[in-house]
């Protein structure tokens, strides 16, 4: 019988270890497909962070480096400067890249570092058990904002792709979502373009993917998807936030 659907070559045989309903697996699969379609598995070095996204080092078939919380882009910079002809990407959660690692997020983009960063935004710290993240929405309950995020005490959530899009070195910035088949197709297109931008050496490329965390949100997988649509999408607007002329001409 002809096999019509299987694992992309960019993913290993290691089964995903994520909670039921978590969309990390979908996003990793998209990257795995892109690595295969662009035929860059053997030329790519991934960088994993700390948190649930840190498991990525086991799931891809390309070389991987894992480092401290928030530092993946600095590590990626070191790898790319040493091996400018290779493809380097970071796979980071929102707490990692928009919280403890913000200085690297800003400066990697400003330098126009020829790497690709994928941010998985579920508005919460997943691995440590559901604490408030820099992306936690106003009023959202977490274990460290048990009465809901109070904007007076905790300040406002950060829309990182919007910030990154203001920096000249960032040439492609997209905000996508993994909640529905239609949005997953859009997400894959954005991820693929981000890698193509790097292949062409045009500058820094960044894709933020809205994701769910049913375990720490306290919702079923199905309700989580609806919660993402109702609450996250109005704050974190989807679309290609920045596409320079050079990227358009790719």
């Amino acid at each position: 019988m002809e096999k019509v659907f299987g694992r992309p070559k960019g993913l290993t045989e290691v089964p995903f270890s994520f909670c039921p309903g978590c969309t990390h697996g979908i996003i990793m699969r998209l990257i795995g497909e892109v690595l295969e379609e662009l035929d860059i598995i053997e030329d790519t070095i991934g960088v994993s962070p700390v948190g649930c996204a840190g498991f990525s080092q086991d799931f891809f078939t390309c070389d991987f480096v894992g480092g401290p919380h928030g530092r993946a882009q600095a590590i990626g910079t070191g790898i790319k400067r040493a091996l400018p002809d290779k493809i380097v990407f970071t796979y980071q959660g929102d707490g990692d890249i928009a919280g403890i690692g913000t200085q690297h997020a800003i400066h990697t983009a400003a330098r126009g570092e020829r790497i690709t960063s994928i941010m998985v935004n579920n508005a919460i710290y997943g691995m440590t058990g559901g604490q408030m993240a820099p992306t936690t929405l106003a009023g959202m309950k977490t274990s460290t904002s048990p009465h809901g995020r109070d904007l007076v005490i905790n300040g406002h959530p950060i829309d990182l792709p919007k910030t990154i899009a203001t920096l000249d070195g960032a040439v492609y910035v997209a905000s996508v979502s993994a909640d529905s088949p239609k949005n997953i197709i859009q997400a894959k297109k954005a991820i693929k373009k981000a890698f193509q931008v790097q292949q062409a050496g045009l500058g820094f490329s960044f894709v933020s993917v809205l994701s769910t965390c049913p375990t720490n949100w306290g919702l079923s997988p199905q309700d989580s998807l609806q919660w993402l649509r109702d609450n996250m999408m109005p704050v974190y607007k989807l679309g290609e936030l920045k596409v320079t002329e050079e990227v358009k001409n790719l």
Partner: protein
Amino acid sequence: MSKRVLMKGNEVIGQAAIEAGCKLFFGYPITPSTEIIEYLSKYLPKAGGTVLQAEDEIGAINMCYGAACTGTRVMTASSSPGMSLKQEGISYCAAAELPVVLVNVNRTGPGLGGLGPAQSDYFQSTKGGGHGDYRLIVLAPSKSQELYDMTLEAFDLAEKYRNPVLLLTDGFLGQMMEPVELKEKPASPEVDKSWIVDGAKGRKKRIIASYSLTNEIGEANNLRWEAKYKDIKEKEQRWEEFYAEDADYLIVSYGTTGRISKSVVLNARKKGIKLGLIRPISLWPFPEKAFIPYKDKVKGIVTVELNTGQMIEDVKLAVECKVPVHLYRRQGGMLPTEDEILANVEKVFNLASEEV
């Protein structure tokens, strides 16, 4: 082909790094180390390398981490407060067993401190510094020629043991100009690079990381690192002895104060006092072996340090408390004179009457 030049200490380190084949330097300016990044910014590109001024010290050490994963020779340099910021990354470099060369041009502390020379980062440098149980190979030069020679060697040592190597100098050595012979580096020994990441072409993927969620694997890792540290401790202890063989009393001092202490020894000998010097060159591993012939023989030891007394703990351990060990120290950027060190040696051991 070697040539003799007059250069500032920090620039000597930069030149040696180029000669050693360092291809990437990631750093952030901080006095009194800044001439290292300035010198390399000017000359490393001409040697086919790159200098990247990072957003901060944390960025710089993690860029070193990434570059070292590819097997490329890489270095960063800073001074005390900057080294504090790097400690997290250094712990990760040690855990991932990456050959990164680090330079600390020690200034005073704690806090922002001042720009003068200090040895107040001895504990931080030799006992781990960052979290977890790891060791750096720590080399302590005392003059420009050693800045050059030890920087060259640091790259080979880092690759040989797959371990970060720290060159611990100070604001005095970094800023001082003196003649130095720029020797050509002998070829580096071939090292195994089957661990690097450079794209999994025709081979299985590799992961460089230090994450272990199982305690059994965690302990196995710790035992592996421990075995490596034991090996280094056995093979890489370095020190210089100066009039030590027949000495009744010893000064133990490294770096800048080790150099001053040589004059102290000569002055003491003129007065008939049998004083000698042990100058530790490797601070980790601490040269315990140097003390074996002396711990049952000498009457007393004075450590001369630019801190509240840090290395003295290792000296006491090395002589197994068989010899009284005293401390003479200056702090906050002050350097002791030869006369005040000798006066202190005479005082603590009641030697004034032994004068001839």
